[in-house]
């Protein structure tokens, strides 16, 4: 499947990756070659084959409903870039 510059711009926006035009162009090229390689998959007949999401056929283990995590706000916010009154700050969100 051929990749268009628009596809790369769209993916970059969905992934919130800032790209300038030069980079976008370069990625069209890189990504096209990767997808060409990946396209070998299309030749395989996979009809009736269940997708495999995990390598082991294991099932989810459940956790008891207990509060085990104490408040560590100050500790966790040491590594935060912008905090005030215990809140993480971001540029104003317009709703």
């Amino acid at each position, binding site marked *: 499947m051929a990749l268009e510059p628009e596809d790369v711009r769209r993916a970059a926006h969905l992934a919130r990756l800032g790209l300038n035009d030069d980079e976008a162009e370069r990625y069209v090229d890189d990504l096209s070659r990767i997808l060409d390689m990946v396209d070998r998959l299309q030749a395989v007949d996979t009809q009736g084959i269940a997708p495999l999401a995990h390598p082991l056929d294991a099932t*989810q283990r459940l956790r008891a409903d207990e509060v085990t995590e104490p408040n560590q706000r100050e500790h966790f916010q040491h590594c935060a870039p912008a905090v005030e009154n215990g809140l993480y700050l971001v540029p104003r969100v317009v709703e």
Partner: protein
Amino acid sequence: MQWEAVIGLEVHVQLATQSKIFSGASTAFGAEPNTQACAVDLGLPGVLPVLNEAAVAMAVQFGLGINAEIPETSIFDRKNYFYPDLPKGYQTSQMYHPIVGPGEVEISLEDGSTKRVRVHHAHLEEDAGKSLHEDFHGMTGIDLNRAGTPLLEIVSEPDMRSAKEAVAYIKALHSIVTYLGISDGNMAEGSMRCDVNVSVRPKGQETLGTRAEIKNVNSFRFVEKAIAYEIERQVELIEEGGKVVQETRLYDPEADETRSMRTKEEANDYRYFPCPDLLPVVLDQAYVDHLRDSLPELPSEKRARFESELGLSAYDASVLSSTRPMAEYFEAVKDSCGDAKLAANWVQGELAGQLNRENLDIADSPISATQLGGLIRRVIDETINGKAAKQVFMALWNGEGETADEVIEAKGLKQVTDTGAIEAMIDQVIADSPVQVAQYVEADEAKRGKMIGYFVGQVMKASRGTANPQQVNALLKQKLDQS
């Protein structure tokens, strides 16, 4: 033209677990910002989710409560999008294999009829945090305490045809989840949040009209008003030659209108895929059976039983089964006094009135079900008359005694049935009322019936309400007729 509205709802119910769906942080409401956001909730590098058993059990209980299919396997997916209150950049949800399959909810309409609303499915997901916009030098503050709180999203089929039906549906869900004890149902704290899909079409037309989604309507009243407004808006728009556009709208309670959300956002592409950090949830039959066996009686079953076994009217049965605290209170009163109809009358009459006046929930009633039952017992065995019963009720309400018997004793409200004592009081009243006696004697039989009321009143007053009114009546009639 006759128009018909088609309404479907997505209701997010916050499950009443102690800890979050994928972490051991507390879900308690109202804590200081970010004090209940642990490493997993914050999405720190390297952390992993582990599923809370209680969230699974509650979802399954809901499914069983609406007679839904419970698939053996359900799978968590990631819904990818960026938003500051979504720490990992994806919400863990269930897109393709939800925990609860198709089911049904019975709703009661105002005219006493019922209707079945189909539930398409219900799935588990994690809640996001909260954005706070006030007062951070033009910045937005993010509180992630709510992030990771378990939600059950219940998706209905578009089976409702009016705002009232939609409200009845939400009330029915509210009643089911609170009966099951899987949610506190507190809409003010966001424990139930509704997204409403509304479209209109000419009556009789098969195909659906274009729908608008109204996001985050958070009270029964607003749901009704928002839908009513939206139906009117769409009908007017079409009748004026316009077209409804598929969009997300917000309801503004102050203006009582819905408004299009200004979004420059292109159509979302959430890139759902199975969450590789969580494995398929497989529920064995024994587990589901165990949950089914421990299911409490649900509102519709209770309503039916109140009618058939207790002989209550459809209306009484419906009111008394509407919430679990109400039903539990009523049943405790009934068990204590042994008379369902009297219990129903007292709970819906005196008690409901007083609760209403003081704006209290039945769960916060100052009179316990046992106290009320004890009071009704004394009415049944004629220890007190109806008038005294109301006095005892108020005394208990005001905390002037532990039991009805204690109040009756302390206030001397025990009904006087001693004929001699009543006769003495009657003689006194007759002696004190020569004019009225004379009038009575002269009156014909028809008028006497009304005039006797005066004497009864006087005797009751003299007994401070404790005389047995039937006895007073009979004795008075005897004595006056002899005069």
